[in-house]
């Protein structure tokens, strides 16, 4: 709707008249629909929605009473197409043209909010109809974006009615140019393009020049990949930029303005042109603006695809029709700029702040934000984040608040790794920095920069070396070539990074990179070259291990650098099981061979097929299409078939080696090491404290997740190789550590974490309080479990979940889990939590116990409710007690399960070094402790962790011990298995979710120890295996 008045605007009365005219023509309106017409929504067919609105409103007879505004970007780009419906202030999103009919009839005609078209809270799933109630919007403070999402981008009348051009009038008729400059200085406004130079000072320098011809340039190049706020302002509120430039021109004494827009933004150019035409038509641009002596007009110049043209001297070069090569400063643009005249160059966002500063005063602006960084900043949230889009927040807000409270956190249950700010000139902020207040100076201290405001969030599937390479590729591409440091420096740095990501890294590469970075930063001619090293320096600073892993271990932990691995699943598996291989074998109807293939790398297929945390599935590329392959379920199928067939037998020991190994602990880590060392021909003895072998697999994980029968037959395959497992033997009591050291040539300490941490609260030693590990051990070993009625479990890990579900099966009437953080932060596997809830277990979050007291013959657990405040170093929310908010729970049995630690006392005679958290300290390459010949791994070295890591450690230690004793460290994996070519037809990949695993019905299974997961039928296993995309073929 663009109804511009033909009347000239010269005085305040004229502005009033335009405003009144707008009010008049929109007064008989019952409904206002603000339809987002930013570029993102337009690409999502917002145009079709506009047409549908027109039709439906006409059909409903509402056309006259409804005002439809085509606004600038509302900011919630991931939710578009979107609109706001007034007077109710309801926000509708994810709209399709076919939704409009319902919207018009239900909401406008019948006054009923259409819930299924509303925004839904991510955690609760509830609809949140009102715009002001949605945190993404509610937490913003929109100054730059004041009109975007609210006003029609095309209506000068509305711009004026909302206060537009008053500031320009005030500046030009009531203030002196110096007064305007002073006001901007007072505001503390700093350049929003990335440099952060005080805008007032820049204007003052240009204003001081006596030249009669000067220029105001608006930098709309916005080349930072990931930034789109300037675009949105130009497209959504072009008059705000025009007004800002008008005021700037007056302040410095310039009558020429140029807006330099990158060519990739044709819509911005179009809308700006329209706005310029409107402004000229009413005399806001041209000769004698507002009846003063001052004239001002603006022309648009378009770029042609060069990132360096965002740099001010290169930009001016481009405006002059030349190659966009920068030049040395001084001379500064304010001395000698465009066409050799004094020039100021300001970013779009900076200029959009000017009118409010003049209207409300510099002090008002300075009161927003924090000292040194006043006002607001528009951030473009993109990457691995739930709510992508534009947000405007006061400076000084914490990074965590932007990413999690406003941005909605990382989607798909993944973990936050890094927030990249400042584009290719910027750096990374990690989980340890979530409490950092965002302002110009604090970011620089952390090795990052504010930049233009692009904030790209990356999850743990991101390789930081690859990120550094990506940015250097960009800089090398965009380097103008004028100066040697940038032209050649970026090329050489890119070469080194490329080699590293291809597995050709060399010792010393990182040091050489760092040196090159310093040189380029110090000697490059312009900002592009000077800041190109930033991403490298930043990633080396915070992620040095990833560089080392690439170079030394040829390992990319994120599974990105494909030259370093066969397939993402194999790479993600700590034991590097050949997943695509065994999936091919299953698909070919050879489950026994599939089992044997798995066994080459992992002696516990049956166990892992049931309880592994499946990092392979998180990396599975099939997940990008529909759902990851259920690798774990197929593994279980292969193992079950193999064992049932009876064809699993003793393997011939191919070698004989001189050497006797002692292993303390018959858990998965110890048994894995035992297995491989035995196959290498060593004599192996395993000493186990409990009456059964298996460690946590036997006495921790319950029967209904891992049937002991399945476990024992798997352990038997290890026993049958000749490994001697002695149960009921405690080192330190039945045999001394010194004796073991004398008896064996090498020792492996794989004792896990068997001692429970206590809560440290009064009453923890009362009868009726049994710690999780002890409780599970009792039940799993067949002992009688204490009286049950109502049970409370305290904790959030797998032990707590297992204890809770076991208590239910032991007959408890009601089981409640108390956790001090939120459910989404519980370390336990999400599947376990879901299954527990299905079985009727209640989980109360944000409660922490402070005391346990007797209450008759029952127990009361007194708790404090917790609130969230800030973030801890690992990226999780920090919980703090809510003052005066207490809650009590009553139970017959209380089971604290808040982590475990290592019982390391038995090694004291040899003085094995223990870390500050009680685990055994080892050399990272050999896994050997400070005592020669004594090795450690699994939970005993890592702290409480998962089975597959323990198994991987067992293999690593077996290899290490072999090398220690003079061998080559190669593990015997058995005869090679011929894996068939997979049957794949790329053109025929059809979408299909997982072939579902069946589970026992929750109500029935809650009272029985029958295995909850029923396993695959052959048909399902084969079908699921065929879903594999075979990333290993290349």
């Amino acid at each position, binding site marked *: 709707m663009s109804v511009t008045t033909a009347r000239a605007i010269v005085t305040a009365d004229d502005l009033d008249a335009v405003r009144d005219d707008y009010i008049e023509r929109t007064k008989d309106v019952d409904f206002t629909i603000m339809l987002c017409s930013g570029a993102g929504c337009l690409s*999502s067919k917002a145009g079709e929605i506009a047409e549908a609105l027109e039709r439906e409103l006409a059909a409903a007879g509402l056309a006259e009473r409804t005002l439809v505004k085509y606004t600038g970007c509302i900011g919630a780009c991931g939710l578009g197409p979107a609109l706001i419906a007034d007077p109710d202030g309801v926000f509708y999103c994810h709209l399709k043209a076919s939704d409009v009919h319902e919207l018009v009839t239900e909401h406008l005609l019948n006054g009923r909010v259409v819930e299924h078209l509303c925004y839904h809270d991510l955690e609760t799933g509830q609809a949140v109809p009102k715009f002001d109630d949605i945190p993404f919007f509610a937490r913003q403070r929109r100054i730059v974006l004041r009109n975007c999402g609210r006003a029609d981008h095309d209506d000068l009348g509305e711009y004026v009615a909302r206060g537009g051009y008053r500031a320009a009038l005030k500046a030009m008729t009531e203030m002196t140019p110096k007064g305007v400059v002073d006001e901007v200085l007072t505001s503390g406004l700093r350049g929003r393009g990335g440099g952060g130079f005080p805008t007032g000072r820049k204007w003052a320098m240009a204003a001081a020049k006596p030249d009669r011809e000067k220029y105001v340039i608006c930098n709309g190049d916005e080349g930072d990949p990931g930034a789109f706020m300037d675009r949105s302002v130009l497209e959504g509120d072009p008059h705000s930029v025009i007004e800002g430039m008008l005021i700037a021109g007056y302040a410095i004494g310039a009558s020429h303005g140029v807006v330099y827009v990158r060519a990739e933004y044709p819509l911005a150019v179009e809308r700006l042109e329209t706005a310029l035409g409107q402004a000229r038509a009413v005399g806001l641009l041209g000769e004698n603006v507002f009846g003063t002596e001052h004239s001002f007009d603006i022309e648009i110049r378009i770029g042609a695809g060069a990132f360096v043209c965002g740099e001010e001297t290169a930009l001016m070069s481009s405006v002059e029709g030349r*190659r966009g090569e920068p030049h040395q400063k001084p001379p500064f643009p304010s001395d000698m700029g465009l066409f050799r005249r004094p020039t100021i160059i300001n970013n779009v966002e900076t200029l959009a702040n000017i009118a409010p500063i003049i209207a409300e005063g510099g002090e008002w602006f300075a009161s927003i934000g924090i000292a040194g960084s006043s006002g607001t900043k528009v951030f473009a949230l993109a990457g691995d984040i739930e709510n992508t889009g534009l947000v405007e927040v006061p400076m000084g807000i914490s990074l965590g608040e932007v990413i999690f409270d406003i941005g909605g956190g990382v989607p798909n249950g993944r973990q936050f790794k890094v927030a990249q700010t400042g584009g290719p000139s910027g750096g990374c902020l990690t989980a340890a920095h979530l409490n950092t207040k965002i302002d110009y100076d604090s970011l620089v201290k952390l090795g990052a920069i504010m930049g233009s405001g692009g904030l790209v969030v990356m999850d743990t599937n991101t390789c930081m070396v690859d990120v550094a390479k990506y940015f250097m590729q960009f800089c090398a591409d965009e380097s103008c070539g004028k100066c040697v440091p940038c032209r050649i420096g970026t090329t050489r740095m890119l070469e080194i990074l490329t080699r590293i990501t291809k597995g050709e890294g060399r010792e010393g590469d990182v040091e050489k990179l760092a040196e090159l970075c310093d040189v380029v930063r110090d000697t490059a001619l312009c900002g592009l070259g000077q800041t190109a090293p930033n991403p490298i320096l930043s990633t080396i600073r915070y992620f040095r291990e990833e560089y080392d892993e690439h170079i030394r271990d040829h390992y990319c932990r994120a599974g990105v650098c494909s030259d370093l691995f066969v397939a993402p699943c194999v790479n993600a598996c700590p034991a590097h099981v050949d997943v695509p291989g065994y999936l091919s074998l299953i698909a070919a109807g050879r489950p026994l061979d599939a089992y044997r293939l798995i066994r080459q790398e992992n002696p516990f297929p049956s166990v892992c097929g049931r309880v592994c945390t499946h990092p392979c599935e998180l990396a599975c590329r099939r997940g990008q299409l529909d759902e990851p392959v259920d690798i774990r379920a197929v593994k279980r199928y292969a193992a079950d078939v193999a064992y049932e067939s009876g064809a699993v037998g003793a393997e011939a020991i191919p070698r004989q080696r001189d050497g006797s190994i002692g292993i303390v602990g018959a858990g998965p880590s110890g048994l894995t090491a035992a297995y491989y060392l035995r196959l290498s021909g060593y004599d192996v003895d395993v000493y186990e404290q409990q009456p059964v072998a298996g460690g946590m697999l036997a006495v921790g994980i319950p029967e209904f997740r891992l049937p002991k029968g399945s476990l024992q037959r798997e352990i038997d395959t290890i026993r049958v190789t000749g490994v001697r497992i002695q149960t009921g033997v405690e080192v330190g009591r039945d045999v001394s550590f010194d004796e073991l050291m004398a008896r064996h040539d090498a020792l492996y300490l794989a004792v896990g974490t068997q001692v429970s941490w206590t809560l440290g609260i009064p009453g923890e030693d009362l009868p009726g309080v049994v710690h999780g590990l002890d409780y599970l051990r009792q039940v799993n070993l067949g002992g009688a479990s204490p009286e049950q009625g109502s049970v409370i479990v305290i904790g959030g890990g797998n032990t707590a979940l297992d204890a809770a579900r076991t208590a239910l099966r032991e007959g408890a009437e009601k089981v409640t889990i108390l956790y001090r953080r939120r459910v989404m932060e519980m370390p336990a596997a999400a599947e376990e939590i879901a299954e527990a809830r299905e079985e009727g277990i209640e989980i109360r979050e944000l409660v922490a116990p402070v005391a346990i007291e007797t209450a008759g013959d029952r127990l009361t657990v007194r708790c404090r409710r917790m609130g969230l405040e800030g973030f801890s170093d690992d990226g999780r929310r920090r919980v703090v007690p809510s003052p005066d908010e207490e809650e009590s729970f009553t139970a017959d049995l209380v089971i604290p399960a808040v982590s475990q630690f290592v019982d390391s006392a038995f090694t004291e005679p040899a003085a094995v070094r223990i870390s500050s958290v009680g685990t055994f300290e080892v050399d990272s390459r050999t896994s050997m402790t400070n005592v020669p010949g004594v090795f450690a791994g699994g939970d005993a070295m890592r702290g409480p962790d998962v089975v597959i890591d323990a198994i991987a450690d067992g293999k690593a230690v077996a290899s290490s011990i072999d090398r220690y004793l003079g061998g080559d460290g190669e593990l015997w994996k058995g005869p090679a298995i011929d894996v068939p070519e997979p049957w794949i037809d790329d053109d025929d990949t059809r979408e299909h979710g997982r072939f579902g695993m069946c589970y026992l019905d929750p109500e029935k299974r809650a009272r029985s120890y029958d295995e909850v997961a029923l396993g695959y039928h052959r048909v399902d296993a084969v079908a699921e295996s065929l879903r594999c995309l075979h990333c290993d073929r290349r």
Partner: protein
Amino acid sequence: MTTTELPPASLNRAAGSDSSDDLSDEVRARLREIVAEHRARPDELIQVLHEAQALLGWLPHETLSIVASEMGLPYSRVRGVVTFYSLFNTKPRGRHTINACQGTACYVRGGRDVLDKLSETLGIEQGETTPDQAFSLAVVRCVGACGLAPVVTVDDDVHKRVNPNKINDVLEGYDR
């Protein structure tokens, strides 16, 4: 303002332009009109080149020669500008231009896989055109639609949240 000696067209051929760079009379006339509008302002060269490129989708040697001589600029200056900016093409384009965005947000959301899949499906590398002249594949660094990453534009259409396993969905509908 002197007329400059134009380098022989054969030089340009060696630089890799198409053999058929003879402009039609109609195009020449249109081109002269475009230049005439900006003749007085040599600093508007980039604008002129954008409009000139819109005529054929690329900038053949003769086009640049005409621009240079009519605007009174050395040919080398015009060529220097053309080769500096990535949006100017000195080779003919396919009927449809595919731009795979490799901006940060798109990269983080799988943009590299999208580009690789496009390359594989079309059988060409970035910067090249399919033999049947239907598609040209290029890379662009951020079109400002980061909320819809990963993004691929085909001519003026913006395809959002492109799935590398569904590249054919993107290419469908464009006549070959």
